[in-house]
């Protein structure tokens, strides 16, 4: 093996998932969820993890995020093993990750507790405005629409300037139009802040619209079937032949025909 460069050098991956396997013990047998997953993600890359429901993609994300410990294998971020959740890497969940007992402002300011008061206010102001929630600072989550709630979760995540954002089907609970708007929103924020994003979804179109690379997972026990590159510049034309070709390929890999 050649000499390794110092951590943080351009050639090093931001996130390295090394042969991660996950087995849950059950009453009479074991449930094999992940089977030797290996994946490197570069800094600033937008990677989608695509697979059918229940294939273990959320489990993988929870492991990378430090919420769960794999049965074997390891995860490294910036060359250091992940041992637990860390404010520099933030999760955006499908729903209810924001606190219903706090208003929009307090939710967004959650990760800024250690900063001086005026800086807290400045950053919170910035991200509340950035996700288009100006005027809703005093509103409680239950009075917001699903899309607005997800914006709160995004603003809360971005406010701590994370270098990695994990998104676990963040748009799954939204209606299809809001979902499209939120995809554009996420892309805009990503292009602006250039953090690394790991995005889990079962929506084929979502992956092609968002990702630099799409990691296709097999059903349980999940293995990486193939990694599909998306060599299209943003904004992407969803009617282009290249888009259709990638879509066909993804459906093929998932084992379904997209022509019905």
């Amino acid at each position, binding site marked *: 093996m050649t000499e390794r460069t110092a951590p943080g050098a351009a050639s090093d991956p931001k996130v390295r998932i090394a042969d991660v396997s996950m087995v849950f013990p059950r009453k009479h047998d074991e449930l094999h969820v992940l089977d030797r997953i290996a994946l490197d993600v570069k800094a600033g890359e937008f990677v989608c993890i695509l697979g059918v429901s229940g294939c273990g993609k959320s489990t993988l994300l929870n492991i990378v995020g430090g919420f769960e410990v794999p049965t074997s294998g390891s995860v490294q971020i910036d060359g250091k093993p992940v041992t637990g*959740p860390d404010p520099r890497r933030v999760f955006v969940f499908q729903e209810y990750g924001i*606190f219903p*007992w706090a208003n929009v402002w307090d939710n967004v300011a959650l*990760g800024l507790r250690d900063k001086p008061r005026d800086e807290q206010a400045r950053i919170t102001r910035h991200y509340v405005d950035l996700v288009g929630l100006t005027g809703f600072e005093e509103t409680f989550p239950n009075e917001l629409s699903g899309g607005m709630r997800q914006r709160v979760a995004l603003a809360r995540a971005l406010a701590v300037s994370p270098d990695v954002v994990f998104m676990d089907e963040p748009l799954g609970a939204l209606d299809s139009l809001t979902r499209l708007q939120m995809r554009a929103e996420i892309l805009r924020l990503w292009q602006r802040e250039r953090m690394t994003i790991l995005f889990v979804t079962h929506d084929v179109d979502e992956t092609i619209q968002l990702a630099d690379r799409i990691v296709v997972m097999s059903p349980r026990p999940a293995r990486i079937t193939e990694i599909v590159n998306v060599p299209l510049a943003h904004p992407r034309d969803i009617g282009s032949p290249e888009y259709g070709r990638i879509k066909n390929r993804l459906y093929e890999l998932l084992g379904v025909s997209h022509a019905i």
Partner: protein
Amino acid sequence: MSWPPIAIALVAIGLMFVARRLRDPWPKWLLPLATGVVFVCLWQIGAESKSYWVHQDDGTARLVWSSPTPGQTALDMLQPLSDGTILRHSVASLLRIAAGFGLACAIGIPLGLWAGWSLRTFQAINPLVQALRPISPIAWIAFAILWFGVRDGSAIFLIFLSSVFPIVTGTITAVRAIPLIYVRSAQNFGLAGLELFRRVVFPAALPQIITSLRIALGIAWVVIVAAEMIAVDSGLGFLITDSRNAGNYARVAGAMICIGLIGIGLDWSVRQLETLESVRWGFRKIQS
């Protein structure tokens, strides 16, 4: 038996059936009022059925009411209501409730939060809590007197006992029901220790804690009569025991009604907590 109460009750029941079929809803107070009227009528009928004539030596007959009617109760209550006797006894009872229930909150909520959060603490104390919970506070009266004498302390202790277990159990359940996603979000943003409790665990559990407080306060108020049977010299429970010993059953009934009405007020005041902005999310709007 006289016919007016029966007739009035039938009219009130008839009104309720009419109200059911109406398209436009009647004022909210009308249905409960009708139910109240039926209740008072039944009370009247019941009291009349327990009355009997006694033939006296001089040849006349005298009607004996062994059980007070609503009218007799109202007449009897006029004086203690106007001279402040009822107010004094009510305040005395409410102060004992405040002390006993306050103590139960101060001990029950932190204990419940702790046991709800830590599995080991839960395993350690839950069996004991569940074993102590079904023991009626009345069973404790002997020990209450032994330890605290025939003073306020005994009554407060009994009220404390009646409400602390529902509060502990309710708080434990509330904490254990917190969705994992809130805790993970909090840990993700670096919250830990007391700050995690203050900013996430407590507010997430608060709506259910308030519900358990409501139940516990109801139970505490039920127990007030038993608690004040111990020879204290004030309180609505004392008033009931004292009136009974004096043979004044109208006064007993009047004090019972006071307990019921104050109970409504207590429940209403706890329910006001449910409208606070930081807990409103935990209460589904129920059509009224």
